[in-house]
């Protein structure tokens, strides 16, 4: 059927200009001599990238963010994988509730979640530490890891596992050689999603960083707010680059469409889509 909404063509065209606009601008500005987008934007220069590479504070923040995202995403995916194995196979009192709680960080307003996390870390005296940030990021990324995994585990053909077991394979051998390879797309999607979400997170994290530790997005936030450090453009372009690399990785391993479908975006209540 033809699309006959009034004005739809200009609207769709405008959306596809609107969405990439700020990102394209960030990259363009990072190469300008002043660090801002002047007209005309000449001469081009790499000075902000060079300035960035000699700034240990920025490099430290990049290192922290990469390490945090990697460890938090790993923890979150492992937790979600274990939970999905149980929740996809068994129904028991409270199983639905656990599934809902796992999705909670996605729908809970982040400003409120930030206060929750501050209170939680204060109780352990873990504010401003890597361990504290790790705990919070593991919780925050749970929905993004759980969603694709529960989908994969649910669509898993349990006959394959049973066949392997009836042929005498031990449970962990079955897990390693049968189940895990079958849910590989879910695992990779979940991990990359969790990694990106952790690497990008700022709203909650900025309540928890301290003098000893800060993440890249939080440092960018403070740099924008306080002064206008032109290095921000170069650093932001690097973030865009990391994101593009991650998305390319996704496209190689799973289809982009599948990735989008699991983005925790098609319904606020989990598992329903997975049943379909």
């Amino acid at each position, binding site marked *: 059927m033809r699309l006959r909404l009034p004005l739809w063509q200009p609207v769709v065209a405008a959306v*596809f200009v609107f969405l*990439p606009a700020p990102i394209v601008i960030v990259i363009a500005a990072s190469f300008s001599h002043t660090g801002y987008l002047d007209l005309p934007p000449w001469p081009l220069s790499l000075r902000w990238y060079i300035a960035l590479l000699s700034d240990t504070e920025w490099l430290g923040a990049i290192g922290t963010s990469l390490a945090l995202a990697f460890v938090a995403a790993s923890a979150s995916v492992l937790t979600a994988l274990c939970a999905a194995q149980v929740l996809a196979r068994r129904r028991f009192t409270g199983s639905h509730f656990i599934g809902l709680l796992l999705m909670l*960080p996605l729908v809970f*307003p982040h*400003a409120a979640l930030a206060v929750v996390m501050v209170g939680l870390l204060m109780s352990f005296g873990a504010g401003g530490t890597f361990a504290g940030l790790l705990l919070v990021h593991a919780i925050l990324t749970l929905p993004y890891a759980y969603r694709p995994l529960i989908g994969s585990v649910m669509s898993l053909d349990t006959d394959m596992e049973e066949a392997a077991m009836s042929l005498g394979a031990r449970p962990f051998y079955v897990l390693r050689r049968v189940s895990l390879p079958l849910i590989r797309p879910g695992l990779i999607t979940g991990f990359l999603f969790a990694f990106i979400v952790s690497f990008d997170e700022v*709203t909650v994290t900025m309540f928890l960083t301290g003098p000893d530790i800060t993440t890249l997005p939080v440092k960018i936030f403070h740099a924008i707010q306080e002064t206008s450090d032109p290095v921000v453009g170069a650093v932001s372009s690097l973030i865009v680059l990391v994101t593009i690399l991650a998305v390319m990785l996704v496209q190689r391993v799973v289809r982009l469409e599948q990735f989008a479908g699991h983005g925790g975006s098609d319904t*606020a209540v989990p598992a329903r889509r997975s049943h379909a």
Partner: protein
Amino acid sequence: MPTGRSLYLALLPAILLLTLLTFGLAKLIAVSFDTGHGIGLASYVGFFARPDYVRMLWRTLLVALATTVICVLIGYPTAWFISRCQAHRSLFLLLVILPWLVSVVVRTYGWIVLLGNKGLINNLLVLMGATQRPIPLMFNLVGVIIGLVHISLPFMILAILAAFRHLDGALAEAAMSLGARPWQSFRRVILPLTMPGVMSGCSLVFLSTTGVIVTPLLLGGLRDGMMGTQIYQEMFIVFSYPKAATMAVLLALCGVLVIVPLQWLERRMSRHSRAAQA
């Protein structure tokens, strides 16, 4: 696969993390009801006694509502376009997903470069002689809503796109071959069947928008505070955890009050649409 009771052991890590989360939530609620000498509503009474706080709560809800409505209006045709797109479908999908995955601070920085008084848009307008003085596009609610729509739009598009993917295109064709005009077939067939996607997109966008901090802090003016920015100030300038906790509980409560009816509607509609498609 491990079988039997030992399988339940696999739930332990999740239960550990969720217990910590629940503990934090419980502590938040407890602090907000603590009056210093017992349990009471004092901090909530204190919140609603301040007209500036109440105005801020309304502003938060209105900004979230405006963002949600704009996202539906421009997201629906975009999702439809992508779902029907044959040739460069993955390219268009990429144009939605890539900005969605780039950090909010980076995108906000891009908007500052674009929207500022000396930003690209105003520079171009002045250069073309369209305006003498720069038009204020930032440090006001216009800037905040532009930034928020940019953050939320991909969520909305992907949610509606998922609904379109479940939609059987033949249904609309059938309606038309039975004599329905395109508009009728849209209103009576396509729209109802994709409504569950719209509803879940709306819930997600509304909820996430009520809790934003970075966008209103960087793109809004001093008088455009939202609940999120106020919570930020209570924590970092006033150092008042109890006040921030009260606001956080109110924020979550507002979300629940808006979302529960929406979810109920969505469930009803998806039941209807499934019945219609069956």
